[in-house]
């Protein structure tokens, strides 16, 4: 519960850094097969992401939804739940955000419009999240299956609601939101980065504080560590399951802040698609910790935008394969390396 880098956290950082090197090496092989210099590709990738104002802004913009969904997965994971529902919760939340923000009177002030739009998104996400939580608590239905299925249901519902009146005619997007609900740009070149990145950081800090410092957070972690022990400690485990899934859904539902309030100013079908599923990878790589989630979201954001910028050197398909190879290698090797590091540190064996 200390904020300084503990021994185990330092081990995590080493393992991840090492895994990143292995992943880059694996990517290099692919690039070499194509006949291009890996140094040039990686150089361009870095220069056009972290090396330029616009590129950096785009990295932040791409990382923001991943922070929200990564936190969503991490929160559930801490309480011992594996959610695959961030994709649907995100879509439902963003849709609700756009509908509410568009329905407000045109002269609504930001102080009213922003919280309302955000609450609509998070509230909708929470409801979509609480449902599989309740199914788990009440009937023992496994949340992995129910959240997967709910993603389809939610996607279909959003499309249906859109087509029956919410989408602008002949399009798959909603009306423009009112000016008061616009989230300000961060002013990084002409990038789409906006204040929702700051919001995501605040949420990450909030999640860290919640789990590290509060009684409820402690109890949720206990449920995640051992539900049977939590029960014997007098904790109402079922209630925690529903609440944790709801909070998870609320965090995923906040994605609309970035794409709807901060960038497009309307909801469009397929917006931020994949960010919900990617949140699982982000949370895994971030080891379920809020700061780990932020760091790994930034890495994934870098790869996402980096893919565009190296497009000139290598074909688009290779860029996509490269991204996938790096993510896969990273996840696989970081697990293996962590295990190796931990074993060297000494797993105790009973005698």
């Amino acid at each position, binding site marked *: *519960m*200390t904020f300084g880098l503990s021994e185990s956290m330092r081990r995590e950082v080493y393992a991840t850094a090492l895994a990143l090197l292995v992943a880059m090496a694996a990517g290099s092989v692919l690039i070499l097969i194509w006949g291009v210099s890996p140094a040039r590709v990686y150089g361009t990738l870095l220069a056009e992401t972290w090396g330029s104002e616009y590129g950096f802004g785009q990295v932040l913009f791409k990382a923001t939804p991943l922070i929200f969904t990564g936190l969503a997965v991490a929160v559930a994971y801490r309480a011992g739940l594996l959610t695959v529902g961030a994709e649907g919760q995100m879509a439902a939340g963003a849709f609700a955000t756009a509908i509410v923000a568009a329905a407000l009177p045109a002269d609504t002030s930001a102080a009213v419009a922003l919280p309302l739009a955000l609450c609509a998104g998070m509230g909708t996400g929470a409801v979509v999240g609480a449902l599989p939580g309740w199914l788990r608590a009440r009937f023992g239905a496994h949340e992995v299956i129910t959240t997967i299925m709910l993603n389809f249901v939610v996607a279909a519902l959003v499309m249906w609601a859109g087509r029956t009146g919410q989408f602008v005619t002949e399009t798959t997007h909603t009306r423009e939101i009112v000016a008061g609900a616009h989230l300000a740009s961060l002013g990084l070149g002409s990038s789409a980065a906006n204040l929702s990145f700051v919001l995501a950081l605040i949420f990450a800090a909030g999640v860290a504080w919640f789990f590290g*410092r*509060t*009684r409820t957070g*402690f109890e949720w972690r206990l449920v995640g560590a051992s539900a049977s022990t939590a029960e014997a400690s007098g904790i109402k485990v079922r209630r925690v399951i529903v609440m944790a899934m709801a909070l998870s859904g609320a965090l995923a539902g906040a994605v609309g802040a970035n794409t709807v309030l901060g960038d497009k100013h309307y909801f469009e079908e397929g917006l931020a698609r994949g960010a919900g599923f990617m949140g699982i990878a982000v949370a895994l790589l971030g080891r379920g910790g809020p700061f780990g989630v932020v760091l790994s979201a930034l890495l994934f954001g870098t790869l996402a935008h980096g893919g565009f910028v190296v497009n000139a050197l290598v074909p688009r398909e290779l860029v996509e394969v490269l991204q996938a190879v790096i993510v896969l290698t990273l996840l696989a090797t970081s697990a293996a390396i962590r295990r190796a590091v931990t074993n060297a540190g000494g797993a105790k064996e*009973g005698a």
Partner: protein
Amino acid sequence: MRLMPSPSEATPALELHGIDRRCGITQANDKIDLIVRRGTVHAIVGENGAGKSTLMKIAYGLMRADAGTIAINGEAIARTRHRPADALARGVGMVHQHFMLVGSLTVAENLILGHEPTRHGVLDIARAEREIAALAERYGIVVDVRARTELLSVGEQQRVEILRILWLGASILILDEPTAVLTPGEVKRLFGLLKSLVAEGKTVVLVTHKLDEVHAIADRVTVLRKGKVVAELPGDSPPEDIARAMVGRPVLLDVPKAAATAGEVVLAVSGLSVAGRAREAVSEMSFEVRAGEIFGFAGIEGNGQSELIEALAGLRPATAGSVRLRGDDVTRASVGERQQRGLGLVSEDRHRRGLALEMTITENLHLGRLAEVSRPLRLDRAAMRARTAQAIAEYTIAPADPDAVVASLSGGNQQKIVLARELSRPSLRCLLCAQPTRGVDIGAIEIIYQRLLAARSAGVAIVLVSAELSELRALADRVAVLHRGRIVEIVAGASLANPDELERIGGLMTGARA
């Protein structure tokens, strides 16, 4: 059966020299020398984590030593090529703590698994049954070779395990904690069997942590501590000497107990029934426990103890009857409500009910007690730290690191955390305490006994479930004997000191009428 080589009498049956084995950062075995003479019972004792099981697994070929030499019947064995099949071929057999029998098969079928006798390519089970029955008779083992093993009692299953390794030709038998699951009567039978085996020239290596057993049967005893041999003594050495060698300091085996000063009734159970997995686990049970009294439950595992404790704790619903805590009906109360009224729980399964293994000592000391350190929007971490420091000092929890993850602690230290937490509840009036010293080393047992007796003196009503009659004798004021979810008889705790009475109670536990 195989023909065994017959080396001269002087050759040790089992000889281990300079055995080293690292498990992670711990040196589980550190240059261990062990010589087991033929035709003797050799006990290996030590606290949990002393390296007993590791050493035996190395001898049996289940684990590989990092260094050292192994010789069986004088024949050196390449350290790197020693596997259980080789060990068996050389006459070493092992009976594990958890039996390796297939429940749905008969005794004979279990024994011939992997070595099936055939005639003209067809399984000849009749011949096997005849041979096994003859072998059993030779050693005075009474068992129906056609019985399905899952229908046998634990003691019978153990004898089948022993029969199995004898059938496979073992002349050196390694038994890992064989008495952990047996009643006193069954222990007696087991020891009788082991003695007749030794008289036949077989060799027995007995891994145990019960010193009275060493005294009862062992010819020699090797004491391990922290992976090293710290003493080798004759089997009839005083238990105090062996205990001192095990722990490294003098140990008080009999904790002095003050006279009972039972006060008002704290826990009143009336007509309680609880459903079990297949049948009713607890049937119409009634008893009262007073303040300052330790009320024990003796019984073979699976006779309703677990369900009784869970029902009293609020973790399992009662199907009939009532539970009153200090006069209030709590039959339908939640776990948390019961805790607020002064109930504490030391579960028989601390890993499942008592601890969160991935969490720290500090965190585990506050499970179920967060209300005391909870402030608006935060936990009072200073208060948590202070209490952790106090518990670590009071219970000598090692390591004394508040941030150490509990999974890395020994069983004894884990149990100390549970007890420190439950016994220091400010509202504690009644403690449910199941198997408090299971998997706990001697040094910790001493502290646990002292603390439980101190709580008794302080007026806590304690329900104590234990598989160890010696534990009930040391702690309990009254003991209820359980059989099939019913209290058969309630006896005075002191009466367990009488061997005849002990025998009679052992009988009651197995269902014999008084």
